[in-house]
């Protein structure tokens, strides 16, 4: 992007400078690079596999120890987190902002709704893959245009996408359901799942639980793939494209190609997120994919810290549970439900501004940088 970001890149190398750039979080190194004490394996793939298995066990425990209402909330967290993970790759690693991810999620959501509605629906995996493929295709088209834009131009163009694309659902009323949208039929719950839940916790499984498991599985697989990508040659190339255009070009990196690739990967995640949303919410309508959805995703990744997958997950959890707290607070102040629901958006906006002004690296990024700084100070002291 610009030279102004260079100090931020240096912050990753444990200097005492305060992080000035929003993307500083992604530069904090992993356990491997710092060589600090860690119990995790040094091989990246092994380490990520181990974390994946631990998270999967943790997720099963969480889903089985909570009630159905909470299981449904986990589904919401999952689709926010999948989309936010994709956006993290795009904005945090590659420095391209997108306000169009809500629209991309709509592509995935509508694909899923239409395919589940068929006489003999295909297996769920095939439907999800189709949603991902179609959204990636749209993402590639948008990405080709986006690769030549930056900063405010890109934000404006993707904003136009977010406002314009839902219009298609209104124009093709017959197939896409117009203003009312499409109701999503629940996929059949397979026999083995029922058996597995019975032996695991003795409880009786329900449709909600099945969907919650699907969502969490999608989330874990997406994050596993994205985490590997970020730590690989591809991730390093993206960071180079973001921080030093000229140096990257001199090193033989084609800026445009890598920007398009980042957009496609990010769109694929958004497509899966849309598919999960369709299952969880059971409805795809233009009102579900407004500009507010895109801005909420942006809030999630900014709170957590741009460029950190864990940060995106933390941000998504806040996105789901903060509105409930605020709604209760608002209703105790005698507001009607719709008004009280809006309070959370005031808070999101204020958070975006405050984080950018005082801690551009976000929650996770700031903590990581503070850790790195204190470690550097200790080693300097001897």
């Amino acid at each position: 992007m610009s030279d102004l970001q260079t100090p931020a890149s240096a912050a990753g190398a444990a200097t005492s400078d305060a992080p000035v750039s929003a993307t500083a979080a992604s530069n904090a190194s992993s356990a491997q690079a710092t060589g600090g004490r860690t119990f995790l394996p040094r091989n990246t793939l092994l380490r990520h596999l181990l974390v994946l298995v631990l998270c999967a066990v943790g997720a099963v425990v969480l889903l089985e120890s909570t009630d159905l209402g909470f299981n449904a909330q986990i589904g919401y967290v999952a689709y926010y987190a999948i989309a936010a993970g994709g956006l993290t790759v795009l904005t945090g690693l590659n420095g391209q902002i997108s306000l169009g991810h809500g629209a991309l999620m709509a592509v995935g959501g509508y694909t899923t709704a239409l395919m589940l509605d068929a006489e003999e629906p295909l297996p769920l995996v095939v439907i999800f893959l189709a949603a991902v493929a179609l959204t990636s295709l749209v993402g590639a088209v948008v990405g080709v245009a986006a690769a030549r834009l930056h900063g405010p131009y890109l934000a404006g163009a993707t904003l136009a996408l977010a406002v314009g694309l839902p219009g298609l659902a209104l124009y093709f009323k017959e197939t896409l359901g117009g203003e009312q949208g499409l109701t999503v039929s629940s996929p059949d719950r397979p026999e083995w799942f029922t058996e597995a839940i019975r032996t695991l916790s003795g409880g009786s499984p329900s449709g909600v639980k099945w969907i919650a498991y699907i969502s969490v599985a999608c989330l874990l697989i997406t994050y596993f793939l994205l985490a590997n990508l970020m730590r690989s040659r591809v991730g390093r190339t993206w960071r180079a494209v973001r921080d030093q255009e000229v140096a990257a070009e001199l090193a033989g990196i084609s800026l445009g190609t890598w920007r398009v690739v980042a957009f496609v990967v990010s769109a694929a995640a958004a497509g899966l997120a849309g598919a999960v949303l369709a299952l969880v919410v059971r409805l795809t309508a233009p009102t579900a994919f407004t500009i507010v959805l895109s801005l909420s995703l942006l809030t999630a990744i900014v709170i957590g810290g741009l460029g950190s997958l864990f940060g995106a997950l933390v941000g998504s959890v806040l996105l789901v549970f903060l509105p409930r707290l605020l709604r209760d607070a608002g209703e105790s102040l005698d507001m009607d439900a719709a008004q009280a629901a809006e309070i959370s958006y005031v808070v999101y906006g204020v958070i975006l501004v405050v984080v950018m002004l005082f801690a551009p690296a976000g929650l996770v990024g700031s903590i990581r940088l503070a850790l790195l700084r204190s470690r550097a100070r200790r080693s300097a002291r001897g």
Partner: protein
Amino acid sequence: MQQFVNLTLGGVITGAVYAAFALALVLIWRSTRIVNFAQGAMAAITTFIALSLIESGQSYWVGLVVALLAGLVIGAVVERLVIRPVEGGPELNAVIVTLGLFIAIQALISVLFGVNQRAFVAPFSTIGFRVGDNSLALSPNTLFTLGAVLLVMVGLTALFRFTRVGLAMRASAFGQEVARLLGVRVGRMLTLGWALAAVVGSLAGMLIAAEVTFVTPTYMDALIVFGFVAAVLGGLDSPVGAVVGGLLLGLLLSYVRGYVGDELVGLAALVVLVVVLLVRPGGLFSTTQTRRA
């Protein structure tokens, strides 16, 4: 034929409002290199302030003046409090700050004034003039809209051309360091620029509210996109370009609305934007020099 005439007239009128809105974006872009995505929300909150005054029995004109004053104050406060720290920093940070303002102010409108749509009564009759048996898409109110936009444009041109303040503002936008060395209080000029832009934005909000007759907290969402597209059409840097871009976009979208479908207007704006950015990134009037994309 009658439909074509009416679509053209309608296009010119909405185009004039887009032009005013684009002008507000250009004013801010020229001085601070920031696209103010919160412009629409800032305009909407001033319209709602005016609306609650009008509903409580005040005249439209009191509402209009209060709306413009509120715009002035909001613009100045926003620049001074939250924009100043990110000016000249990484461009992503500034974009995110204005988006944060956008979502916060828009939600604040819902919290303060409720989420339901409310009727907005135009100051003049909205019944079209008649030529023979045909009714034209031109009414006393649309004439007022056109006149108000024209007045603002003439006023801004006069301000920048003929006054010392205007000269100082142009100097701060052109070269901050040089202007500062020559004794221009650059910071104040930037605050003034934001305040002026917010006033123009508020006016656009009031005018479009009278055209659409019903307002919701999100009624400016589409306008921010159309204003941005119009500004980019004109090159984002030139006030004249913003006006021409606004009129062109207004006409084009009016034809799309009339001949294709109301639903696809947003998509048409997207197509225009992408084509312009890919073919002539410097806007329609750029000479040889273009922005490094």
